[in-house]
């Protein structure tokens, strides 16, 4: 049993002409600051200092859910009345806080000053602050800035802003040979699986961005080929392209088909022949297909509704529709990048209701009317929908759990099957 690995064998619909409903209104999504929650785990010697309000501090605390870490590598410089009223120089205050922080945490090698809604609105220039502080603390600590504010970014866009701010710090590639740069935070276990796969295919050198250590930044140059592991990185791609790198068009590595298409894009770019590609990937494809089989009965024919959250919605919907025969009622995404998602849009079944942006009350009305078997949504909506009898899947788990690649395809299916199994089990 093998899957159709030709990514373009799908409905020949012109993705550009695909109808997309654009909504604006109340949005029930996290802001970009939340990216810190996974970025600080990924870049192990970095610290994220939000320059913001008490709300920002409370958000990060609530989004981190439980306080797993006694002293995590993020914090907030809370602006107070005197900072806004100009009674103190906000820059002096920031210097004081950063000095205090670095004195306390000598292990920090990379410090991000993260802009927030209030710091953006009062136009606090964090890029100048980062420059000034860098001069003071280099070479021991590198200080960069980016915006994670809710007026600029939604949820996963925070990672994009963070990575884009790191691009100027990347060293220039020295030699003429082609190299592959995989961008977007992946769980370490997933990175290692992909690395083994690239090795077996004969693709290399391969680097990952963000790196696990800020002192091991990948190099970039005109011979760098970018493979996006996450769909929410347009600014990072643009910044890398300005350094000469080329993006490989590919679907995202979710499910067997997505992973195969993603690896194939790299293989094609590195001139790996089809026979080698099939020989190397087949055992993994077969194994993943077999693992997925268990979930087909559970999920096949079930109707699913996506509220916008992470921008992973379209690749997820493609996987669920094509590999598990789920019916897509509505696929909401906070933002749709037509170019980066072109390969995905080609694969998405014709006639799917796509929504970009959100007016949450209207969308809830549509969801209630459609009564899907399962709705994918943020934590603010999950329990209210469950109370109305609609089974839900917390979207945030799709960002925090390793779901990419062959070995995780069945885990990804399980994330959707579990709430349905649970509801079926409960009699009281």
């Amino acid at each position, binding site marked *: 049993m093998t899957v159709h690995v030709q990514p373009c064998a799908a409905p020949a619909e012109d993705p550009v002409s695909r109808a997309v409903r654009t909504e604006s209104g109340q949005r*029930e999504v*996290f802001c970009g600051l939340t990216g810190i929650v996974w970025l600080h785990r990924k870049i192990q010697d970095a610290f994220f200092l939000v320059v913001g309000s008490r709300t920002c501090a409370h958000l990060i605390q609530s989004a981190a859910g439980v*306080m797993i870490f006694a002293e995590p590598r993020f914090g907030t410089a809370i602006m107070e009345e005197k900072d806004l009223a100009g009674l103190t120089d906000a820059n002096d205050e920031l210097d004081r*806080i950063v000095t205090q922080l670095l004195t*306390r945490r000598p292990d920090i090698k990379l410090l991000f000053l993260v802009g927030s809604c209030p710091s953006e609105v009062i136009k606090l220039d964090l890029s100048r602050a980062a420059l000034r502080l860098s001069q003071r603390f280099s070479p021991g600590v590198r200080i960069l800035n980016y915006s994670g504010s*809710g007026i600029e970014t939604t949820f996963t866009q925070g990672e994009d802003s963070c990575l884009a701010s790191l691009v100027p710090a990347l060293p220039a590639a020295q030699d003429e040979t082609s190299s592959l740069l995989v961008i977007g935070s992946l769980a370490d276990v997933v990175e290692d699986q992909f690395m083994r796969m690239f090795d077996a295919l004969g693709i290399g050198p391969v680097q990952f961005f963000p790196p696990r250590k800020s002192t091991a930044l990948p190099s970039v140059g005109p011979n760098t080929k970018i493979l996006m592991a996450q769909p929410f990185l347009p600014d990072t791609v643009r910044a890398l392209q300005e350094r000469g790198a080329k993006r490989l068009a590919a679907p995202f590595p979710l499910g067997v088909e997505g992973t195969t298409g993603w690896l194939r894009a790299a293989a094609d770019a590195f001139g790996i022949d089809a026979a080698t590609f099939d020989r190397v990937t087949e055992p993994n494809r077969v194994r993943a297909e077999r693992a997925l089989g268990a979930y087909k009965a559970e999920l096949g024919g079930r109707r699913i509704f996506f509220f916008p959250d992470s921008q992973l919605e379209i690749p997820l919907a493609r996987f669920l529709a094509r590999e598990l025969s789920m019916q897509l009622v509505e696929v909401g995404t906070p933002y749709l990048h037509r170019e980066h998602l072109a390969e995905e849009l080609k694969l998405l079944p014709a006639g799917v209701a796509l929504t970009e942006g959100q007016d949450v009350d209207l969308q809830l009305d549509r969801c209630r009317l459609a009564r899907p078997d399962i709705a994918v949504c943020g934590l603010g909506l999950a329990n*209210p929908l469950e109370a109305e009898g609609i089974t839900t899947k917390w979207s945030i788990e799709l960002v925090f759990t390793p779901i990419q690649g062959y070995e995780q395809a069945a885990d990804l299916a399980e994330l959707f099957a579990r709430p349905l199994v649970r509801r079926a089990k409960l009699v009281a």
Partner: protein
Amino acid sequence: MQLTVWTYEGPPHVGAMRIATGMEGLHYVLHAPQGDTYADLLFTMIERRNKRPPVTYTTFAARDLGRDTAELFMTAARDAYARFQPQAMIVGASCTGSLIQDDPGGLAKSLGFPIPVIAIDLPAYQRKENWGAAETFYQLVRALAGPNAPAPGTKRPERAAGVRPSCNLLGPTALGFRHRDDITEITGLLGKLGIDVNVVAPMGSTPADIARLGDADFNVVMYPEIAGQAASWLHRIFHQPFTKTVPIGVSATRDFIQEVTALAGIDPAPMLQASSSRLPWYSHSVDSTYLTNKRVFIFGDATHAIAAARIASEELGFKVVGLGSYSREFGRELREAAKRYDVEPLITDDYLEVEAKVAELHPELVLGTQMERHIAKRLGVPCAVISAPVHVQDFPARYAPQMGFEGANVIFDTWVHPLMMGLEEHLLTMFKDDFEFKDGAMPSHLGTGHAAPVAEAVAAPAAAVATESVATGVAAPDIASATAVAAAAAVWAPEAEKELQKIPFFVRGKARRNTERFANENGVATITVETLYDAKAHFAR
């Protein structure tokens, strides 16, 4: 600016949300950027509410800032009114919303809704969650009950003969620590006394209920942090007296009964004789002997912390070694309470300062919030939660009030369970040579069985060193080197080590810690048998 990692309180508009979410028929239109909607999950996930909070956010974005954000606000308010048909509306701005100066109050008034629209102005860069809740409740009471106020100078009419006295319960909100169950407990207690509850607010009330607050004879202030300001206003305008005692603990509940019966003109004696809690008997039972002078550290909101200190000291026989609160507004009350237990009051919202204090005092039990639970876990000290901010597990499915006589029962259980039981301590002593038992065995009911926390004795002072140097702004040495320093500072002579082994193992860990501390403080390099007994004498109480 203030550097913070974890915070005890959210911003003031979250306090306003706690009022709105606790009520029915009220809607909150909040001028706020995308992302501030995170606050919904506090209610739907932590409190497990089955409805979305009644809040509409404008969720403006950067592109809106160049356009008309005021229009955005008015559209959101209009849509919210049409969809939710509330009895009253509160409007305001979050921290970023307030920076763009759109005047939500004025804008909402201009829309001419046929319902009361109350503007809540919360200084987001000065104040915090509990203040925001208190201010919102006060503004609601003023706006909704105010029109029914008696004319200035008129006296309250006497209660007609044969009519039962009545009161309002003020202060419970959404996301409050056991507020839901406290309402049930206090309503029951008052009912038994012959006092009716007119309105419970904000929790469970509608704007129409708030408007009839003045009908009651007096007010019960359950949570002064939230209801204090409104109760003072009601006293001034409606001449309604209000209670000062918070009925948490057996003694406080009895004081409370005295207070409300005095306000209602009822004889408290039958009730005081008839009702009590199991707490006093359990405390007197032989099994509780081991609780004597257990050193307890207390931190939380002012109301719960002060009440906990009284219970700990007078009803459980603990020794209060630390008392603190993040409620700066109640600093005076907390300082007064601290004086009673002869401890230095700790009034701070910096959890690192609290952690340093816990490490320094090395208590045997911590009573605190979600933050202290983590601090205690890190330092290997048993802990029970007594106050918000809390975790999903602090919204239990079972009935678990803090107030009244049943609340005292709940408190006895919750605080004592993290400790080893008296009988268990005895048995462990008797069977101490059995191979199953090791030095520092954990209480058997705590899951980890008899896994001894070996590193605890060393880790606690090391953490104290690390956090103390943080507090003083000196670069913190890493834990490993701090441990090395602590270990190097006091070397045990073999015969002293042997003598230590003769001490019953359940106090051996403490003896070791105390001796090392004594040695370090007195510059003793080698701990001899003499040092051991010098330390024992020094710490004897």
